[in-house]
């Protein structure tokens, strides 16, 4: 019996080859897109789930808060909190801490840059990292021991023996020898704890560092706590504010204690750190958006499948009627069609999996990700896919099956025409649904692209090309390397600042406007004198700052103090906010600026510069104030000759080695930093465009199939019309109109949905494109045109056919 079903099904498929291939291919493409998106999203959501008892491990994060200033979130926790946690919560089983840092490594006379975890004892046990060779026991480990991952060992030693080998690290300005005592497993790619290079923590290494304080001022410990199973985290979290109240020291002298600022504590499950932890640049919202798109595409594909299957029912009504007359029961008919539909869906699923396999490398490149699909290793995923196949098959098949089960054989067997089985309304509805989604996606993709381009074209107010940013120069040799750099003919200018554009500044200064009233807030940026020259920010009035005494707020000397008065520069917005009508009016004027609540400076405005972007392009330009603070110049920006880029980089390398022979050069380029800001939106835009294209394609495949079906069904009607005198144009018009209606209705549904969504999304941008009506109309017309092109072939073929043939058709 099943063989018989199979045979009829297969032959019916073969007979309508085009139809069947569209049906299967459309579903396969939809499934493939769905799988690809879900793989990506799942991948993002599944970080760090591999740890033992991951559900009990939480990262402790500190966020500094200061009234009138933006919060400063850190991924770290301060030194005292470990003991406080042990004392306060009996539920805490263990805490692992490490300081994450980049150091210069020397091996065989060569210098490398190495990311290192300075870890407290017990780190490997806490995370359950496998020790493959050697030992790193908390009890016996020496300060000169190292645990490195397999891949790190291979990087430095290749195939040679590794245990006991020496690696030299430059820590605190001093080279120190370490010996590999253990080789540990490589970290998972999708993990926030990259345990490649574990060094036993030693207080001595950091003793001189300003940030290495044992109080609450600096958070530098990556701190992971493991709670007892079943701990109610809501109760623990409720306690956190009280901890800050009790333990954060207050009312002591000095500006940097808990008097003007406070802190909030956060506990983030290790599995959520990648997406929700402080300092992440992942965007969970975008992931939810993608998931939505995935389901929409799946919906389109399933609707397609349903629609085409239904169209095919008419062809097969006679077969079913005959089977029923010959004694097939309702159950047998249902079985036959459900089985057939599930089989088709599985065929499509297999095809989809093949497509995914083929597409994955390109997809990974596109997303700069490393997604794999390993179905055999993942029974859950395999099960889900099988379920998806069955689900799609059942949902598409059940309609057909019930329709046929209810079919009255004599209706079919006695009629001469293939009956329109009453599904045409439903089919039209499904086409409307498909095109609603497609048109909405088209409009959304268009505006997302437009916004991304718009943001890219936004005038940043400075020139980002040919700028190299060095770090690690904020020390006594700062001037020395600056001089060396400027000696090269390929280097045009060198400037220093505490932060560079795209990063935003951390300082907020409160200043009373000259017109009186409440103090206003300006973003402060500690710079060196050449900052504006390097970034090519035009001057509107007055002059730039110099390194002359009156311009310097704080010099780089031992125990440096802030000057009580200094010359400063503001941007145009800043000048306006301070109450000056024109830039010129601000020159020479004095304001008193609160650097913090206990530090007031008499600031004389000597220059006004044009506004420029310092934060992300998503944000507005803000009023800014710029002053010279040589202590806080951690970034050195170098403008190079763009025509001799390689020579300029070589010159930088050279200057670096001459100045800092013991460490290796690390630099970023400003255009890459600017580019990175657009990256997520760009990625979103590209993915959206690609999948929208796919959605439209699948919808069109459905429409094409339907058109071929309708053309076949209507040949007789159209034959009669022609005999009665209809012209070619009348017939083509008739056919096109039939398919225009659902697309037009789809537009009416898609427009408000797309508008609502886009308006919401665009509101997240300070500088956004407007939602014009025209693109909506154009996309709608585009969809209509695509629809027409899709069905035009069939319409023409039918219209051209000889009516005699059509009428003999039965």
């Amino acid at each position: 019996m099943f063989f018989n079903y199979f045979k009829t099904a297969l032959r019916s498929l073969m007979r309508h080859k085009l139809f069947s291939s569209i049906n299967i291919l459309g579903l396969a493409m939809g499934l493939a897109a769905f799988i690809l998106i879900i793989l990506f999203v799942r991948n993002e959501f599944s970080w760090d789930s591999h740890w033992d008892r991951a559900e009990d491990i939480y990262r402790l994060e500190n966020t500094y808060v200061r009234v009138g200033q933006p919060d400063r979130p850190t991924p770290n926790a301060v030194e005292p909190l470990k003991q406080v946690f042990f004392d306060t919560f009996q539920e805490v089983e263990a805490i692992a801490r490490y300081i994450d840092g980049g150091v210069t490594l020397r091996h065989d006379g060569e210098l490398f840059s190495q990311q290192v975890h300075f870890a407290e004892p017990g780190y490997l046990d806490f995370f359950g990292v496998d020790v493959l060779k050697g030992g790193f026991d908390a009890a016996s480990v020496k300060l000169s021991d190292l645990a490195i991952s397999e891949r790190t060992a291979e990087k430095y030693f290749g195939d040679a023996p590794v245990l006991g080998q020496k690696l030299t690290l430059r820590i605190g300005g001093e080279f120190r020898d370490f010996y590999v005592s253990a080789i540990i497993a490589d970290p998972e790619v999708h993990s926030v704890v990259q345990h490649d290079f574990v060094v036993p923590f030693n207080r001595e290494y950091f003793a001189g560092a300003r940030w290495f304080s044992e109080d609450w001022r600096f958070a530098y410990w990556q701190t992971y706590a493991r709670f007892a199973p079943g701990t109610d985290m809501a109760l623990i979290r409720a306690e956190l504010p009280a901890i800050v109240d009790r333990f954060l020291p207050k009312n002591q002298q000095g500006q940097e204690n808990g008097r003007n600022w406070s802190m909030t504590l956060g506990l983030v499950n290790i599995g959520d750190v990648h997406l929700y932890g402080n300092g992440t640049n992942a965007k969970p919202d975008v992931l939810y958006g993608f998931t939505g798109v995935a389901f929409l595409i799946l919906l389109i594909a399933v609707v397609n499948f349903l629609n085409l299957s239904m169209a095919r029912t008419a062809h097969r009504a006679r077969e079913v009627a005959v089977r029923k007359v010959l004694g097939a029961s309702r159950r047998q008919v249902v079985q036959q069609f459900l089985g057939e539909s599930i089989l088709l869906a599985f065929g499509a699923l297999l095809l989809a999996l093949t497509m995914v396999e083929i597409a994955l490398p390109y997809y990974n490149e596109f997303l700069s990700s490393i997604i794999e699909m390993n179905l055999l290793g993942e029974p859950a995923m395999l099960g889900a896919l099988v379920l998806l196949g069955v689900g799609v098959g059942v949902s598409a098949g059940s309609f057909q099956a019930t329709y046929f089960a209810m079919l009255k054989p004599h209706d079919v067997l006695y009629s001469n025409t293939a009956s329109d089985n009453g599904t045409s309304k439903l089919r039209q509805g499904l086409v409307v649904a498909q095109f609603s989604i497609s048109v909405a996606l088209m409009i959304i993709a268009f505006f997302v692209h437009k916004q991304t381009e718009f943001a890219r074209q936004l005038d940043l107010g400075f020139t980002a090309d040919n700028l190299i940013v060095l770090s690690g120069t904020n020390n006594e040799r700062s001037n020395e390397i600056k001089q060396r750099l400027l000696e090269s003919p390929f280097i045009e200018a060198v400037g220093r600042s505490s932060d560079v554009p795209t990063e935003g500044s951390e300082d907020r200064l409160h200043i009373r406007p000259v017109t009186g009233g409440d103090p206003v807030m300006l973003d402060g940026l500690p710079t060196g004198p050449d900052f504006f020259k390097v970034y090519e920010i035009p001057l509107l009035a007055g002059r730039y700052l110099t390194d002359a005494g009156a311009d310097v707020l704080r010099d780089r000397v031992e125990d440096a103090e802030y000057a009580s008065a200094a010359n400063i520069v503001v941007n145009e917005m800043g000048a306006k906010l301070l109450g000056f009508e024109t830039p010129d009016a601000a020159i020479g004027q004095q304001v008193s600026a609160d650097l913090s609540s206990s530090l007031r400076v008499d600031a004389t405005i000597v220059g006004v510069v044009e506004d420029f972007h310092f934060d992300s392009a998503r944000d507005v330009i803000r009023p800014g104030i710029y002053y010279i603070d040589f202590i806080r110049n951690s970034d050195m920006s170098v403008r190079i000759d763009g025509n001799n880029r390689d020579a300029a980089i070589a010159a930088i390398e050279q200057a670096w080695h001459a100045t800092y022979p013991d460490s290796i050069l690390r630099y970023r380029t400003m255009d890459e930093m600017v580019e990175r800001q657009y990256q997520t939106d760009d990625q979103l835009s590209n993915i959206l465009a690609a999948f929208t294209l796919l959605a439209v394609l699948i919808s069109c495949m459905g429409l094409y199939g339907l058109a071929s079906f309708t053309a076949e069904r209507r040949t007789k009607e159209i034959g009669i019309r022609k005999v009665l005198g209809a012209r070619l144009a009348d017939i083509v018009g008739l056919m096109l109109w039939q398919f225009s209606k659902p697309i037009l209705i789809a537009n009416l549904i898609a427009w408000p949905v797309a508008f609502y969504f886009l308006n919401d999304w665009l509101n997240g941008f300070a500088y956004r494109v407007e939602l014009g009506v025209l693109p909506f109309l154009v996309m709608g017309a585009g969809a209509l045109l695509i629809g027409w092109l899709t069905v035009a072939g069939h319409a023409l073929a039918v219209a051209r056919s000889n009516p005699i043939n059509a009428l003999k058709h039965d």
Partner: protein
Amino acid sequence: MLKLHNLSKVYRTDEVETVALNSVNVEIASGEFVAIMGPSGCGKSTLLNIIGMLDSPSSGDYIFMEENVAGYNEAKLSNIRKQNIGFIFQSFNLIDELTVEENIELALLYHNIPASERRERVAHVMDKVGIAHRAKHMPSQLSGGQQQRVAVARAVVGDQAMILADEPTGNLDSAHGQEVMEMLQQLNEEGTTIVMVTHSPAHADYARRTINLFDGHVVTENLRAAE
């Protein structure tokens, strides 16, 4: 074999109510060959459908082999039908995707008959209707007469006691029509009850009795003298 008592069929659509059959009383004995005649629209097909249990009466009784099946549900009817009744249609109604052989075999698939026996029986009826040399052909490769012969073979392969034929010769030229009629006659002689709707008086002559319908009523029943 069967007996219709005061049987009526009313079709209700939104606006109109069509009385297709109006208090029809008919009795058909086992082994009879009955022709149903009458103008188009008088209810012939409706009558045949009800006899064939493809449709249910609106009122009245239908006694089939001592059982009143008038109120039976679809599943029950389907079960009785597949044991006892074979169908032949004007438009053949063969499945395009199946070969001649497979089309005939289809009638046995719903009967739980082992494959070897199925093959035997199919071969046997194909011989009987003279279509064996076309066993592997698709319906579209056959002439109308050949297709109808396949349909006849399909109707009898399950050893059905009764064959219902609705204008079986309506789509055939006279030579092929004749052929089919002779086949039916032979089946009747072998004991099969045959009820046939036809417009052709010549073909009606093959039957021993003719029921004339007009506007849903049985107007006359002519019994042809046994020859």
